[in-house]
């Protein structure tokens, strides 16, 4: 079920190097992986990007939950592959696009699994983002697991009323998500209104200049991580511009109704 995808984005306090790290270099690492996976549309490079994350996941002691988010993303990954392949992309290109998605899910799942929403909020404030905006962002992150849990309850409630999500044609199945999505959206709106009222009644925004109790402090290890991330990013850009990489694409593709697409 796709709800498991969210499990891998939930923060859980653990005593590991990655959890102790400043959120800024950690974000830089995720961002580096993000940018590199967009710059390169090469299966081997993406595979290297993917494998290079495994030691980090291992160090963060979150292997199981990371694996859960990978499993949760399987349906979306399969859809990306099928859509690409059916619309005339080559087998290798379709696989590359799928891997790109997996790399992205993995990188951000690792970031959110090891970064507490509080740290994230502090980092955003350090980046001079107005408090209302950083608060909105961290609240959204914080609410993801709650909403995922709520979605599961809604699915259970509607199944108890005889709704069968996995039966019928594709269109019928899509329509069957209406009884899931409407309660989910309505309760999210209700929740946010209630949250807004609760915040206002506790004097949210009364003080313009907030003084945080805890502040973020970059340690030598954080600087090193940031430097490595930047170096890898720079190297990646250099390779993309100056070093030709074999594409390994053997050109296998689905025969389409309209023949081979033009320009291939």
């Amino acid at each position, binding site marked *: 079920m796709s709800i498991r995808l969210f499990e891998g984005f939930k923060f859980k306090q653990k005593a590991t190097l990655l959890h102790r790290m400043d959120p800024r270099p950690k974000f830089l690492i995720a961002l580096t992986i993000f940018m590199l996976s967009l710059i390169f549309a090469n299966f081997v490079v993406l595979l290297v990007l993917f494998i290079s994350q495994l030691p980090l996941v291992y160090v963060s002691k979150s292997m199981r939950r990371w694996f859960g988010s990978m499993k949760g993303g399987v349906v979306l990954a399969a859809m990306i592959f099928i859509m690409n392949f059916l619309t005339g992309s080559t087998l290798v290109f379709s696989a590359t696009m799928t891997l790109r998605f997996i790399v992205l899910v993995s990188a951000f799942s690792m970031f959110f699994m090891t970064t507490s929403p509080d740290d994230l909020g502090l980092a955003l404030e350090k980046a001079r983002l107005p408090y209302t905006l950083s608060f909105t962002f961290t609240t959204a992150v914080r609410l993801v697991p709650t909403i995922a849990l709520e979605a599961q309850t809604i699915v259970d409630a509607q*199944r108890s009323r005889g709704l069968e999500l996995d039966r019928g044609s594709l269109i019928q199945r899509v329509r069957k998500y209406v009884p899931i999505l409407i309660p989910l959206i309505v309760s999210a709106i209700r929740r946010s209104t209630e949250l807004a009222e609760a915040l206002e009644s506790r004097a949210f925004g009364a003080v313009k200049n907030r003084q945080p109790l805890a502040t973020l402090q970059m340690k030598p290890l954080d600087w090193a991580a940031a430097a490595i991330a930047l170096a890898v990013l720079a190297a990646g850009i250099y390779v993309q511009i100056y070093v030709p990489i074999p594409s390994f694409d053997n050109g296998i593709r689905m025969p389409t109704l309209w023949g081979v697409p033009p320009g291939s």
Partner: protein
Amino acid sequence: MNMIEVKDLHFAYEDKEVLRDIDLTISDGEFVAIMGENGAGKTTLVKHFNGLLKPARGEVLIDGISTRKSTVAHLSRNVGLVFQNPDHQLFSETVFEEVAFSMRNLGYPEETIRKRVKFILETLDLGAYAEASPFMLSGGERKRVALASVLVSDPKHIILDEPTIGQDYQQKDRLRNFIIQMNSQGRTVVIVTHDIEFVVDCKPRVILVSKGSILADNSYDSILSDRELVEKASLVSPQIAALMSSLTNLNFSPKILDLYHAKSALEQRFGEIVHKAV
């Protein structure tokens, strides 16, 4: 065989064990209240009754059929489960459509649907809202719409998770009458609740759940008059019981749980006192 049978049920979410060693049989037409502290596993237990959750170990049989061998949709014909929060299920434009949803899923003809929906809306005091949007109703009304939307298909076994939350006293009373009426028509009723006064009014068999296992299973008066047991399950004795047992020097039975019983006991005792004095 029409009943709910739970045999050696164990269940865990991820690695957290939520239910263990649950053995119980609810016979056809019984009225049962499942009570216990928050997080005791009450909702997890009843989610096994219509196959939403499958046992990790052991087995749950509904009318002799294992929930492992059946689908939720199939079981929902005989087992109606009403969730705690109505906002987790309301989605239609009108109350009528909302209530008709489960019957449509079960494939009833339109004429039957119309009749049944009209009947259940009248019974639950919602007749005036048939064409209203369920989202515009008050909390208590939404709760009743959710109730109607499950009861409309007339399931044999009815499971209500916290049915009294958000209902005023009058609505609670109507709900109680309605539940008792359904029960007297031979349907099994299982309620999950914290509302001890409601339980006293309904007089069901009580299953006390604590930390994932069954603490006690007996008639409502023997469980609710056992102070130690009640406290163990994080409940508070009914007010009348507390009052009567605090009148220690008058020596009342701990089994006095409702007003009528208390009244007759007090009358009797005062009669004795007056008699002695004269």
